[in-house]
């Protein structure tokens, strides 16, 4: 397993505004190499928004996010291609094309990040889907699609994993495999942020409750920034 260089990912005073409603504000996070952050909070409290913000898909209304590595600091909202290369994002959709086989689906994403054929097989092994290697995506169940999507992030290493409800549709055995994969990733110096309603065992993970950053008076306070 490749070791990631020592890095740190920080966010300060983040504000998220969705269609003129402040979802959260004054939110800080600090993630070190090998660290994990678990996002909890009721529906609509902004867990997905925060993950998308960390990925660079959503611009914060206010606040900064910085990536520290080898004595350099970089504002992650500036260059999406550079930041995108060091993260894997697993969202609500599994991005599995129905007409491509499992191997082709994973292979495409891996090759965009210079992953090889052998890493694809290893990744399939991690989530126990080797037998699905040449099965087209349209024959997969929801849980199998999710496993393919998770295997994708193993097939090409990137230091930061952003997992939005990764356990959706997964069975207990696969959740165990995911926990082991997360642990391996952290042992190699990677970072993980995940949002979850179910129990995912991530020892030593910091817990961030989004409800603590909710706007207290949502009706009269439309934050102007």
């Amino acid at each position, binding site marked *: 397993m490749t070791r990631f260089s020592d890095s740190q990912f920080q966010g300060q005073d983040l504000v998220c505004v969705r269609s003129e409603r402040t979802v959260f504000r004054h939110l800080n996070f600090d993630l070190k190499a090998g660290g994990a952050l678990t996002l909890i909070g009721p529906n609509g409290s902004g867990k997905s928004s925060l993950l998308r913000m960390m990925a660079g898909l959503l611009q914060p209304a206010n606040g900064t996010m910085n990536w520290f590595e080898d004595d350099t600091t970089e504002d992650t909202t500036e260059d999406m*291609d550079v930041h995108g*290369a060091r993260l894997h994002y697993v969202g609500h959709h599994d991005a599995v094309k129905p007409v491509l086989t499992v191997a082709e689906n994973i292979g495409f994403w891996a090759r965009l990040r210079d992953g090889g054929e052998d890493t694809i097989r290893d990744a399939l092994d991690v989530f126990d889907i080797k037998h699905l290697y040449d099965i087209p995506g349209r024959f997969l169940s929801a849980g199998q699609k999710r496993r393919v999507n998770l295997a994708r992030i193993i097939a090409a290493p990137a230091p930061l994993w952003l997992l939005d409800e990764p356990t959706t549709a997964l069975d207990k055995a696969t959740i165990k495999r995911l926990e082991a994969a997360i642990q391996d990733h952290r042992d190699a110096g990677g970072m993980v942020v995940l949002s979850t309603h179910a129990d995912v065992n991530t020892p030593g993970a910091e817990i961030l409750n989004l409800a603590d950053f909710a706007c207290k008076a949502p009706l009269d306070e439309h934050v102007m920034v």
Partner: protein
Amino acid sequence: MGNFIELVSRDLSLAFRQGMDSLMVVAFFVIAVVLFPFGVGPEPGTLAKIAGGTIWVAALLSSMLSLERLFQTDYEDGSLELLALAPVPLEVTVIAKVVAHWLTTGLPLILTAPLLAVLMQLPEDGFIVLITALLLGTPTLSLIGAVGAALILGSRRGGVLLSLLVLPLYIPILIFGVSAVDAAIFDQSVRPHLVFLAALLVGSLALTPWAAAAGLRQALE
């Protein structure tokens, strides 16, 4: 460059395995042109006069037919987010998708056009110029269409909106495309018209990927 080829070949294999898109575009093109002889009557003189324009308008409409799906499926299944996060500039991804779109729709149109030109009794002198003009014009159609396709993401009834956005922008291509064919038939110089088409192609190649990528980022927010 490797990534660019990777992106193009993915879209091509998706298009070939889903199969129907290219076929439907060509079928629509043929049917739209075939309707004209029924509408205006089969007199050779009349048909020949409108041949260039008819083929161009039909090519415009049929190229637009498949544009709606250019980003739509990737948007719906989450691939677009991952493409935006991939270490490939989104502008390059847009160009790759446009190239794949042109290869699966524009190119088949060009290959069918000579047959339809015979049907419309286009004078022989116009054939080569018609093909050349289509070769220069159809990539521009795909490029401009990509901007529209990016802007309609997430809206209902996107197809209708797309045609309202894109068709007015197609007018310059239509004008120079048809006038090139007419110039060839009436034995005038075709060069200025073709040069204009080439200029439109180069201009939109430089500008539209940025506009489309900005539209995609907006849709992903």
